[in-house]
């Protein structure tokens, strides 16, 4: 049922104006609305799929969040949580390596790979340019981005990382 929203939106998007972007402004706005709605519905499907793959499907408190504004360095989920898991999904049919950039509010974070032994991942804090922070309508307090490399995500597969608002030393001390 949730996928039907996407199917219908993709049906509408076959129109030549949608493909080439030659539609009128009001129509463009409507296309954006259709796609946004479809993506919100897809969030529930993704949530179920990630729950199944991670073995946490029966945990009622597991919730998956999509960050649709990462292109403007904004993500309410990574900004508001002090400890969270990041799932990286590869939609391609062969393995890829990529860099993850997560907008955050503070200066000190750690990243652990949950794919093997929970090892600390090399990461870097990078400031978000001031002009990006001032984009009109950007509702975000993030001033930095946590950047790390994700090696060899399997074809159509996932990798899991834990991110905590604690330094590596603090985590080691607690453990």
């Amino acid at each position, binding site marked *: 049922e949730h996928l039907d929203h996407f199917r219908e939106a993709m049906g509408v998007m076959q129109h030549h104006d949608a493909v*080439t*972007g*030659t*539609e*009128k*402004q009001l129509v463009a706005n409507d296309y954006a609305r259709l796609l946004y709605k479809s993506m919100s519905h897809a969030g529930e499907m993704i949530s179920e799929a*990630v729950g199944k793959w*991670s073995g*946490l499907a029966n*945990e009622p*408190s*597991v*919730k*998956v*969040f*999509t*960050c649709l504004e*990462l*292109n*403007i360095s904004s*993500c309410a*989920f*990574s900004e508001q*949580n002090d*400890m*969270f*898991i*990041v*799932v*990286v*999904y*590869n*939609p*391609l049919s062969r393995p*890829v390596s*990529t*860099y*993850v950039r997560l907008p955050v509010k503070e200066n000190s974070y750690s990243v*652990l790979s*949950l794919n093997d032994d*929970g090892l600390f991942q090399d*990461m*870097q804090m*990078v*400031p978000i*340019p001031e*002009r*990006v922070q001032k*984009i*009109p*309508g950007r509702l975000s307090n993030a001033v930095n981005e946590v*950047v*790390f*490399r994700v090696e060899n*995500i399997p074809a159509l597969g996932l990798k899991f990382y*834990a991110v*905590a608002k604690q330094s590596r030393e603090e*985590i080691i001390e*607690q*453990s």
Partner: protein
Amino acid sequence: EPAEFISSELYNISINDDGNLIVRWNKQNNMNLVQSFHFYEGAEGPIVEELHHTINEWVSQVVRIYPEEEHIEFDWLVGPIPAKDKVGKEIVTRYSSNLKTDNVFYTDSNGREMLKRVRNYRPTWDLELKEPISGNYYPVTSKISIKDEEKQLKLSVLNDRAQGGSSLQDGAVELMIHRRLLKDDAFGVNEALNETAFGEGLVARGTHYLFGGKVKNVDKFVLKEKELALKLALHPWILGVSFDWNSIDNMR
């Protein structure tokens, strides 16, 4: 009167309170200029090195290189394009190189094969362009390339969204990244391309990958480019998972 100034019959040059140099034309009251120094913020680290490059109040970019990648990433940010001067603007970013390209460049055909484009030329008729810039613009869905056949060098720009692109000078490629036009172009839509949000012109942010070098093995080079283009178009999804955990050990 500023303490520090020099002047001649033509110019009056002084330094204002902000430390900027002001040049005034004595014979043209309405002409002046400010010369100032700026700096680009840089960030260096083991994962990424980046340069924050501000061009003006509405154009800036972050240029990134990664030790484990062969491309350069240009993360451009354009807007809101000012329109108070009543001039519609189409913003392009141009990559100019020293390659000898003999009027030839290549653009992809909706992400499929690369099509050869020749500046001011159409293969089936004698061309006389009334609009020499737009007449040489082609759709670029994922890649625009130029080649120096003699040196066997190739330069490609991969884009994250469909844009218009061209090579208006030898060795250069350009892509149109944003526009704000105040009049309809009379090609059918019957409205000006003037999107606004929050009472201002739209701000657009996007990415270009610049990839180039010696083409020793064509197959290998093309494969690398294809992989990069796919990675940009179908970027891995980043999802957040929340759960009732209270420590990192629990999370593990």
